[in-house]
């Protein structure tokens, strides 16, 4: 599925880095490697970057606890469920989650542009972004041992 995404620092506007204090999330994988900013599911209040309505923003990622009732629990949303209309009452809107690397079960893999996501809303609550998933390809399944994979933007692996 997806435990986190990493995006080159150079691809995030300075305005967002300041506003969301993303500086603390900067990491590098090697001496000569470029700086990345990571968004991980395991954080207390996980976030995801997402393009929505022509704007890149930082959004709350999924729903952690049962207290936040009304939103589907978890961080992912089955594409099939969305298409079947399960979340129609949450006014789903498509978003694009920009990413250079995606984390799943401890494996970081390269993606071209990012992932497909969905933004769900409830009255008097902050909107939530979910990563859309689909049945894993054979390759993905062997790589991560998962039978679901994120819906990738503009590519298939």
């Amino acid at each position, binding site marked *: 599925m997806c435990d986190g995404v990493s995006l080159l620092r150079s691809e995030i506007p300075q305005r967002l880095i300041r506003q969301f204090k993303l500086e603390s999330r900067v990491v590098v*994988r090697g001496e000569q490697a470029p700086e990345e900013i990571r968004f991980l599911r395991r954080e207390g209040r996980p976030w995801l970057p997402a393009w929505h309505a022509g704007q890149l923003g930082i959004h709350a990622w999924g729903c952690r606890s049962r207290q936040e009732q009304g939103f589907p629990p978890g961080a992912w949303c089955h594409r099939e469920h969305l298409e079947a209309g399960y979340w129609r009452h949450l006014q789903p809107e498509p978003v694009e989650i920009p990413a250079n690397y995606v984390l799943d079960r401890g*494996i*970081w*893999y390269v993606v071209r542009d990012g992932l497909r996501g969905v933004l769900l809303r409830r009255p008097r609550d902050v909107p939530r972004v979910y990563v859309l998933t689909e049945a894993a390809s054979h*390759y*993905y399944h*062997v*790589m991560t041992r998962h039978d679901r994979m994120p819906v990738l933007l503009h590519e*298939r692996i």
Partner: protein
Amino acid sequence: MNIILGRMLIGFLDADCFYVSCERARLPHLMGQPVGVLSNQGACVIAKSYELKARGISTGMPIWKARPLCPEAVFVKRDFAWYEILSRRMADEVRQVSPAVEYYSIDELFFDASWLSRTFEAPLSEAAMRLRERIHSRVGVPVSVGVSRSRTLAKLAAKSVKPFGCRVLLDPEETKSFLHDCPVEEIAGIGWRSADKLHARQIRTVGNFAATDRHVICKLLTKKGEALWWELHGEPVLPLDTIRPPHKMVGRGGSLSGPTRDIERLRAWLVRNVERLVEALDRHGVVCETFSLSLRLESGHYIGDGTTLPEATAQFPRLLAAARDIFNRVYRSGDTVTHMHLNTERLSFRHAVQQSLLDRPSAQDIETARLKRLINKRVGRFAVRSGATLPLHDIYADPTNGHDICDIYGKLCF
């Protein structure tokens, strides 16, 4: 054509961690990252960056073993179609500065370097560096270059300066001291068996090898070893082949995308692999005289056999009949198969075979094969294929299975 060698200079160009470099050419953010290229099945690391290598990850290592060694590693699926494009671009760049280029493998080229200095209007070592820079800037792939009097020396020179180095070896004294410490196994053409024989005679370095009496080398390693001896003395005896002579063998096959004992699936794989094999023989313009089939069972055992064909052929019906015949003989129902490999040997160029000795297809077979090639070229590989491959619907539905390692290069790169 074989280039007649006078005092020609031979260059060798070898791309540095080629697959990873190809990925970096289109995704520059991979620069400096510990990158692993995964096999088509996602199970093994088939190529790695120097950063990943430094963490102890080797080629062929399963991903579950590699991950704990380098949790920060980033993995990417191999894309042979892309690597092949860059490989050809590399060759095109070299052709612009050389009258003769030999495609040695997907990431290695031999070339006539006699004009390099004049082309770049610079001393040879600087010209070699300029070529390296040009390929890096135009193709996006870092390479190492060696230039010397023979193929063997040029290759040794390039290997010694990896990554992204250049070495010109012309001065006899410099060559001698360079060869002095180089392990004898580094010579292209010295396998472990030859190395064992040499070690037994205390010949451990290339320097030792070159200093040994030529006749002794010939006795130990036959004419092939003697050719290497001359090459190491700067006497080129292995010519550049700008059109590769027939390969020793052309094969096709691989994993079956999961173990199977379903007889329909196995028969379908057989057909698919024969189709791929015929395609490869066509591309090389060769016919074969022998055919063999090998199956790897889940138990780790191999079963298979070979056969000599009634006449040299590259025809689908003939090869399929041979494949089925062997399959029926060696396969016992219930055996679970994980890999299948088809191989052909005793190859010759079609145009070089006496027409009367060739297996002549019927007019109908010729027309069928022509139409198949035409449609597949236009619509896509395997658009028209044998109906017997229907049980492999899942394999054909996955577009990533549409590429082979293009083996016009004569050897696999992993």
